[in-house]
C-alpha cells in the first residue's frame, strides 16, 4: 500500500517544455543546469511520491533509499545499487535498469513495464504484484525472489534465473523464458503461450 498523499507535479519552467519539474528543482532533468548539485542534495529530500522521471543516477549507491511511490519513469539507473531500497508502488516503467542491484529490495506493486533490466539482480527481492509487463531482463537474477501475483506478460526473460523463486499466481503470459532456470521455483504460475524452450525446471 502506498503511503503517498500528495501527487502534484509542477511544470518545468523552461519555455515550451511540457515536462514536469523534478522534486527539489524547478526544471525537468533535460533542463537542469546543475545536475551534480541536485544529485548531491537528493539524499536529504523526502522522496516519497517524488517526481524523478528521466533522471540519470547510473552507478550510484542508493542502497536502502525510500523511494516509495516515486515516479522514476524513463530514468537511467544502470549499474546503480538499490539493495534493500523501498520501491513499493514506484514507477520504473521504461527505465534503464541494466545491471542494477535490487537485492532484498521491496518492489511490491512496483511498475517495471517496458524497462530493460538485463543483467539486473533481484535476489531475495519482494516483487509481489509487481508490473513486469514487457520487461526485458535477459540473464537477470531472480533467485529467491517473491513474485506472487507478479505480471511479466510479454516479458523477455531469456536466460533469467528463478532458482528457488516464489511464482505462485505469477502471470508469464506470452513471456519468453528461453533457457531460463526455474529449478526449485515454488508455486503454480500461468505460462499461457510462453516460450519455454530450454527451460530448466
Amino acid at each position, binding site marked *: *500500500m502506498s503511503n503517498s498523499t500528495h501527487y502534484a507535479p509542477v511544470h518545468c519552467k523552461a519555455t515550451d517544455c511540457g515536462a514536469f519539474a523534478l522534486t527539489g528543482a524547478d526544471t525537468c532533468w533535460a533542463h537542469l543546469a546543475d545536475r551534480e548539485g541536485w544529485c548531491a542534495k537528493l539524499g536529504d529530500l523526502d522522496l516519497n511520491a517524488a517526481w524523478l522521471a528521466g533522471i540519470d543516477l547510473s552507478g550510484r549507491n542508493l542502497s536502502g533509499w525510500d523511494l516509495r511511490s516515486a515516479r522514476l519513469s524513463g530514468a537511467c539507473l544502470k549499474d546503480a545499487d538499490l539493495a534493500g531500497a523501498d520501491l513499493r508502488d514506484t514507477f520504473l516503467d521504461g527505465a534503464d535498469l541494466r545491471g542494477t542491484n535490487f537485492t532484498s529490495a521491496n518492489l511490491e506493486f512496483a*511498475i517495471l*513495464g517496458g524497462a530493460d533490466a538485463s543483467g539486473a539482480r533481484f535476489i531475495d527481492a519482494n516483487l509481489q504484484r509487481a508490473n513486469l*509487463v514487457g520487461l526485458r531482463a535477459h540473464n537477470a537474477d531472480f533467485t529467491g525472489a517473491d513474485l506472487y*501475483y507478479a*505480471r511479466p*506478460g510479454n516479458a523477455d526473460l531469456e536466460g533469467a534465473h528463478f532458482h528457488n523463486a516464489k511464482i505462485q499466481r505469477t502471470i508469464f503470459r506470452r513471456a519468453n523464458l528461453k533457457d531460463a532456470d526455474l529449478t526449485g521455483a515454488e508455486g503454480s504460475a500461468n505460462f499461457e503461450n510462453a516460450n519455454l524452450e530450454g527451460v530448466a525446471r
Partner: protein
Amino acid sequence: MIFRHFLVDVNESNTFLIGCEETREAMLVDLGEWDPAIPAFLEVQKLRLAAIFITHDHYDHTDGLRAALEHHEAEVYSGKGCVGGQQGTRVTQDDSIAIGALRCRVALTPGHTPEGISLVAPGMVFTGDALFAGSVGGTSSPDNAKRQLSYIRDQIFTLPGDYEIHPGHGPSSTVAVEREKNPFFN
C-alpha cells in the same frame, strides 16, 4: 492532488482515493470493503468524503458502500444508478465529476460488465476490471470480449502515454506500457 492506494482483502481488490488539496474533498474509486485504513486516512488528512465512484457492480468493488454511507454523506456515481444495493447517480460517457478543483471525466469501458465505466482524472485513469497490467477483465462472450478491447483502444489508449493506469486488481501501469506491451493487444 492527494492520491492514495488501499489494497483490501476482498479478492485483493484495489481502492483508490483522490482528493483536492485546497477544499479537502475526496473521492474513493471502488470500495470492496470499508477497510479501517480508509476512514483513518480521511481523518488524519482532514478530508471530507464527497463521492464514491464505482467502476462496475461486482461485490468486490461495492461491498464497502453500505458501511461508508453510514458514516459519510457521499454521492455514489456508477454506470447503473443503483449499485451494491445503494442508490446513486448514473453517469455516462464524458460526464464530468468535480472534486474540489479536480475535474474528472467518465469514459465507457463495457465488456467485463455491460455498465462498466472508467474515470479519467488529471494524469491518471481508473479502469476497474476492464484493463489490468498485462491483462483485461473476463467477459461472458466473444462479442463482449471484442467490445471491451475496442472500448479500451478508443477510450484508454488514446490518452497520453504517461498517464497512469490504476486498475481494480493488481499493480498500476501506464497507457504507453499497456498500449505497446499488453499481450491482449500485442
